[in-house]
């Protein structure tokens, strides 16, 4: 009997039809009767005292329902939460509407509610706020220097935390023993996440039932519900959060924002539905930013390229306030500083700094792209200094497959890996030797061609609860309905990753039902058991494992009912596709549907078995997983214009077992594009007055289709030992692996002109200037 099989197949996403035909429902598509609209008045100053807010003119406008200021709602909505915990961490009050002071451009100062959005916007324009500008500090180094303006006076200075991981005697010895010490400053610039769909919130309150329903474009509906209930002072079980279709998040919606609480509060106060949808400019100003680190690196190396020790000082630009995980991101960089290498001694110091800017927080990769960038730039700097091939330096420092689980100096236990295999495969695909020959020839002719390699390991499947601020497990319910249709409830909250497809594949295989009979439900706290959400490349590795475990429990019950109906012991039941047969009497068959119906009609129950066919499982992972891979970029640079053309791009990623290769490839593609954005184009720019100069999509360069090279992807497959399916996770690998590959390629291309390092983004202007400078020298 041939068994139907979906897992491992490149099945097109079931989500795609509704997405590409525009028939999906986002927050902005929700329209409720008598719905009011909120518009926010935001600070045009980077740092200022609010002397007076004149609301009368706005309030007097026809159609305006309410005007709220920070002062007016003081104490009614709790501070925007920060979940990160750390010894000595300074956590400033973070009101949903600024009180007395504004600390970044875009900080909400007042909320206007009106019968339609136009009226609300007009009224917001009428609001008069009198500011007294204060000295601004946006540069992290200036913010920690003596005499800098203090952003939160009550906290004394702008240092939010200092986290030290001492390298101790071992590190000291490493630098003493080193033949070569290399030092370099590496800047990981601030980025806008730029999800296609900006944020949005709708809330509706039913006073009779005391029920608040909140639709929000979020990655974490359950965590948001808990936090919102606390912020607006409601019992958690009276609050329902729904994440409808979410148009991308990249970490920017892994948060609890003031607007979410404001809309919830207003709906309850006004007893009418309230809606707020972010504009793109608001999105750039007041949705979290990513990265923002200055890394001063020192590395101790032997003459033959072996790394003995690594020391990094991380200055992290946190912005003006903590959002949900703001102080928790840079420590991930510290944790990952061993990368895919055996580095016997590592020491780091992280200084988290307040600046007059929007908060930084998790952006695709969250701390790991920064670590990978440090290591991969360092590997190339070592190769350059020792005149070795960058491949050789990397291979020399990889741990061998038999050394796993490999324990790093930073205290992690890497589950499994064969780093050299992924690297060799990438070199084979790209035909490395041939490319180096070509490069040598073209260099003779003065042409600028570069090859960049990046080997990475990342930390995924977040994660053991002990290591996370709000639980690291995930939940799943698998329910076979009376008609034999299957409903899967997942606590993960996919928003583009495609788990409606991959989880259906997994469950369809396990139960032997057609794919279209499995419906995956997520993102509604009234329907789905408590879950953690989608971030940290965890949805499949952790959420998928919960689904897998739940479906095993259901299968057991299905077998009991099948055996009961067939009148045999369950050992004597032979499983077919969608049917069960008695081994003793192959003529006796019951269908999956018949079993399902019997379980619900419950006319006759197997001994000790309860009615219904449903199981819920909460999976707690024992460790993180550590996917890895190697990316290779080949670039040509136009010496006339400084423009970088990515000629070849090869990505070999190992994310463990794969449920749907199409989804894996999609994640890699998207990640590479975002990494390319950071490497070549993107940068959040504040001027010295704290004005956001990259505040819209005409001044912030996100890659477009034409900027994206053809991407050649391949895989190696090393299953993890952390979960039964061997899945590691792949959501962020692209942004982690690709950025340094591209930068290394560009620096390699510029090497004959004496360039040793350039900070991102590598814009044509920056490269052109370098080339001009070189010509003059």
């Amino acid at each position, binding site marked *: 009997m041939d068994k139907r099989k979906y897992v491992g197949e490149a099945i097109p996403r079931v989500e795609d039809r509704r997405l590409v035909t525009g028939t999906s429902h986002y927050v902005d598509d929700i329209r409720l009767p008598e719905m009011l609209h909120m518009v926010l008045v935001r600070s045009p100053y*980077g740092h200022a005292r609010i002397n007076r807010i004149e609301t009368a003119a706005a309030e007097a406008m026809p159609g305006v329902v309410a005007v709220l200021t920070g002062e007016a709602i003081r104490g009614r909505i709790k501070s925007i939460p920060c979940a990160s915990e750390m010894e000595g961490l300074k956590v400033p009050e973070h009101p949903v509407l600024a009180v007395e002071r504004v600390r970044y451009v875009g900080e909400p100062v007042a909320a206007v509610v009106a019968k339609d959005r136009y009226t609300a916007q007009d009224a917001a324009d009428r609001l008069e706020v009198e500011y007294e500008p204060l000295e601004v500090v946006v540069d992290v180094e200036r913010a920690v220097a003596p005499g800098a303006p203090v952003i939160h006076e009550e906290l004394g200075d702008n240092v939010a935390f200092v986290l030290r991981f001492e390298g101790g005697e071992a590190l000291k010895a490493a630098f003493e023993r080193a033949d070569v010490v290399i030092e370099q400053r590496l800047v990981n610039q601030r980025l806008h996440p730029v999800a296609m769909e900006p944020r949005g919130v709708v809330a509706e309150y039913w006073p009779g039932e005391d029920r608040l329903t909140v639709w929000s474009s979020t990655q974490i509906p359950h965590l948001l519900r808990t936090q919102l209930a606390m912020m607006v002072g409601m019992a958690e079980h009276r609050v329902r959060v729904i994440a409808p279709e979410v148009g991308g998040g990249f970490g920017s919606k892994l948060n609890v924002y003031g607007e979410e609480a404001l809309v919830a509060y207003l709906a309850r106060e006004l007893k009418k539905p309230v809606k707020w949808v972010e504009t793109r400019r608001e999105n750039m*100003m007041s949705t979290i930013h990513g990265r923002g680190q200055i890394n001063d690196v020192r590395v101790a190396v032997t003459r033959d390229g072996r790394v003995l020790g690594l020391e990094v000082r991380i200055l992290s630009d946190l912005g003006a306030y903590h959002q949900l995980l703001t102080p928790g991101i840079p420590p991930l960089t510290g944790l990952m500083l061993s990368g895919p290498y055996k580095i016997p001694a590592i020491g780091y110091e992280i200084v988290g700094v307040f600046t007059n800017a929007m908060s930084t927080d998790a952006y695709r990769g969250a701390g790991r792209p920064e670590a990978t960038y440090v290591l991969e730039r360092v590997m190339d700097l070592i190769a350059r200094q020792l005149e070795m091939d960058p491949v050789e330096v990397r291979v020399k420092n990889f741990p061998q497959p038999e050394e796993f689980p490999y324990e790093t100096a930073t205290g992690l236990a890497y589950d499994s890996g064969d780093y050299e295999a992924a690297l060799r495969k990438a070199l084979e695909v790209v035909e490395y030797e041939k490319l180096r020959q070509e490069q040598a020839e073209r260099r003779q002719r003065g042409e600028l061609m570069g090859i960049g390699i990046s080997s990475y390991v990342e930390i995924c499947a977040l994660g053991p609860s002990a290591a996370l601020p709000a639980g690291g497990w995930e939940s799943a319910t698998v329910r076979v309905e009376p008609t034999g249709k299957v409903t899967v409830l997942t606590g993960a909250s996919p928003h583009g990753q495609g788990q409606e497809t991959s989880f259906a594949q997994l469950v369809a295989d396990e139960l032997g039902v057609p794919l279209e009979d499995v419906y995956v439900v997520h993102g509604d706290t009234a329907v789905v058991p408590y879950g953690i959400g989608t971030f940290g490349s965890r949805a499949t590795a952790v959420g998928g494992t919960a689904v897998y475990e739940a479906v095993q429990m259901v299968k057991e019950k299905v077998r009991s009912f099948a055996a009961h109906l067939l009148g045999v012991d369950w050992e004597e039941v032979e499983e077919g596709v969608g049917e069960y047969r008695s081994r003793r009497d192959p003529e006796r068959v019951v269908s999956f549907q018949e079993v399902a119906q019997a379980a619900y009609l419950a006319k006759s129950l197997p001994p000790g078995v309860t009615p219904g066919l449903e199981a819920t499982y909460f999976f707690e992972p024992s460790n993180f997983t550590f996917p890895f891979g190697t990316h290779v970029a080949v670039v040509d640079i136009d010496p006339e214009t400084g423009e970088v053309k990515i000629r070849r791009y090869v990505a070999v990623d190992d994310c463990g077992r794969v449920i749907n290769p199409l989804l894996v490839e999609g994640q890699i593609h998207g990640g590479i594009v975002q990494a390319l954005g950071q490497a070549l184009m993107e940068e959040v720019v504040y001027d010295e007055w704290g004005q956001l100069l990259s505040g819209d999509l005409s001044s912030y360069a996100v890659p477009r289709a034409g900027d994206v090279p053809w991407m050649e992807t391949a895989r190696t497959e090393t299953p993890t030992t952390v979960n039964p399916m061997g899945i590691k996770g792949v959501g962020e690998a692209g942004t982690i692996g690709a950025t340094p590959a591209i930068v290394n390629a560009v620096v390699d291309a510029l090497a004959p002109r004496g360039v040793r390092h350039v900070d991102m983004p590598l814009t044509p202007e920056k490269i052109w200037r370098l080339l001009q400078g070189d010509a003059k020298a």
Partner: protein
Amino acid sequence: MKIAGKHTVIAERREVWQLLVDPEVLRRCTPGVEELRAAGDGRYEVVMRLGVGAVQGRYEGRIRVEPEVPEVVMKLEVEGRGPQGIVRGKGALRLEEENEGTEITYEGEVQLGGPIASVGQRMLQSTARMLAGQFFTALAAEAAARQRAQATGQPLQPPKHGIFRNLVRFLWSLLKRWFGR
């Protein structure tokens, strides 16, 4: 952001100065001005309609004018706010006699805040230069009108400006300058 430039008006320095302190003239000559009221003590309240790149809006603001050296140096402070953000600026005008007339040198620092910053900042320099050009071109037209009135004994006919007219005059003066008339 720093802005600077110079412009020549064919008129005596004293005449130019008088034009510069006449609120009616300022109202007529400043591009985009809808209202301009003298509030005494060298302060004016203005309502302007301005467009910088893609960001356009109505700005309400205050201008403070302080004659540092009468007929030679005038200090200016501008503050405006509109739906697209804030504009603040500080600067000085210096008047110098030249063979043909009066050369006006201006320099200052302008700060844009709020949404306008991201779009406006990059175009500020060129926009400011264009607006200043339009202003001084209009001022020259005012001076010419006065001279005409004086020469003919006819009552003064204030010239009409408007953004478009000033722009044409400005471009014309540029052409004349480039092609040496």
